[in-house]
């Protein structure tokens, strides 16, 4: 499916104020907010348009968090139904994309609530502590191809995958990411840095180091 908007992943997105949109607001955000209003009024085509715009990014984010493609698609379906039902509650206090991702995250949490907890191997991932100072393995990231990095991201712990996806996949700001993850911005910063360090270590083990 050719859906260019959905892969425009790195575009910074600004908060939306429905009733008083500032002139500087990203036009896509204006369009998105309008679409949500249309969804709230029962416009199915508007929902389909939102899906085309954001479905890919949201699905990628769910997959990063959940790790199971089939389950991720089910959660995406739950999410779009929740968008339909909850559109009237959207107040424009966040970008539409981050609002949808936050819904998806809650749906994923609901789905996984009754599952056994998997203990991640990466202690730094679980703790969310800041990464140690950048070491020589950091150079491994620069040396790796994007596809290799993508595969390496898939090997990270959930928290690391999730934060990298939000910041670099969904294009959210650190503040928006913090809101989605329901953690302080400082934690997001620590988690992002720790994720990169873990990524670099993983790539270094694969030989991507001088």
């Amino acid at each position: 499916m050719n859906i260019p908007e959905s892969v425009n992943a790195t575009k910074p997105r600004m908060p939306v104020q429905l009733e008083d949109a500032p002139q500087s607001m990203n036009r896509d955000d204006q369009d998105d907010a309008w679409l949500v209003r249309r969804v709230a009024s029962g416009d199915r085509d508007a929902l389909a348009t939102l899906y085309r715009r954001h479905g890919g990014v949201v699905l990628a984010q769910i997959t990063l968090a959940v790790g199971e493609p089939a389950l991720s698609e089910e959660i995406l379906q739950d999410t779009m139904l929740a968008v339909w039902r909850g559109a009237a509650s959207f107040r424009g206090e966040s970008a539409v994309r981050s609002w949808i991702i936050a819904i998806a995250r809650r749906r994923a949490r609901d789905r996984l609530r009754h599952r056994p907890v998997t203990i991640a191997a990466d202690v730094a991932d679980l703790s969310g502590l800041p990464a140690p100072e950048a070491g020589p393995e950091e150079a491994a990231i620069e040396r790796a191809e994007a596809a290799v990095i993508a595969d390496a991201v898939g090997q990270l712990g959930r928290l690391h995958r999730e934060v990298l996806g939000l910041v670099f996949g969904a294009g959210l700001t650190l503040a928006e990411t913090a809101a989605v993850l329901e953690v302080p911005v400082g934690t997001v910063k620590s988690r992002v840095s720790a994720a990169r360090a873990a990524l670099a270590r993983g790539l270094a083990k694969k030989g991507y180091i001088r």
Partner: protein
Amino acid sequence: MNQAPVHLRLEELIAAARGGPVAPPAARHLAVCQSCAGEVRNWNAVTGGIGVLVTRSEPPGHIIGQVLAAIDDQPPQPDPVPAIRAEPVAGTARHGLRGHGYAWLAAAAAVALLAGGGYGVSTVLSSAGVPRAAAALTATGCSSLKAVGGTLTSVSGPALTIRAADGSPVTVTTAADTKVVREIAGTLSDIADGSAVTVFGTNSGGTVDAKSVALRSGAASSAGKLPTSPPGHGGLSLQIGLASGTVTDAASSGFTVDEPDGSRVQVTTSPATTVLTLVTSSIGQLEAGQLTSAVGTPGPNGTLAATMVEQDALTTIPALPSSLPSPPSSLPNPGPGSAFPSPLARPSLGNPGSLFSGLGCSQDAIATTYLMALAH
């Protein structure tokens, strides 16, 4: 006294890595600080890797189809704003038939009648606080292309002004290579096997009953640029029928359209079907007061830098005195389930962008479809 260098903050590093805006002081620092430049390269590599993951996650078409089917099984929602409501899915979803809800017909008809009269009916848009010029540009199925349609009010050198569906004037700039096409009258006998066509009509059990057929020929042909329909698109409501492709099996009662994606759409015609022939034209030949569409890229301040301009030279737009307090009431009955409680509450064109879903980046098909929708 030596001061320790103040490096970029994480936010600035990430913004630079994502290609976003960087404040001038940060940019200056980045130009001379190898450490920060290395950080940006690292984050940029992470961005690339994540981008691969996102690209791999194409949203499957069946998911939104299932969502819409589930919605059909639910009781109706409250309706806080005037809605352009889609009809329930009618019949079997069919690839190549792009459905957009019955209300589209009524909304488009409203636009056709109102565009020449100076009425602004964009209550939804204005209440949402969306700048009118920005709202007037319509998203298409192609991320790089926007469209505007309405009445051409003036031509000033290479610049056109189109009064858009929501009543706002939109400046359209053209260049030497902007393609300009006019629709002139044709006849059903002009439709022959091999003709490149765009068809607009109603979906009747999987067949398009054509209201208009636009024939492309010669320099106006869009051969090789006809749209493709994304998988899963047929999950939407199917009241308006569209087809675009090459004619086969032309007969007096209809023909088949072979779409570029391999799907085949049956089209029926009648004496009421309007046949339009698209001919190459120029900016100087465009007439004020006629329905006109333009496709291109967004420019500054809500303008559109057009790569394609198309004008309907046939449709007569009723002139409405500007002093009339309300739009005319002779609009077609939108039928059961309509969200139009009264003429005054009729919405604007709604989300015309959805009309173009499936048309890809074919500027010809977008421009023609826009005009057909406005004319009907």
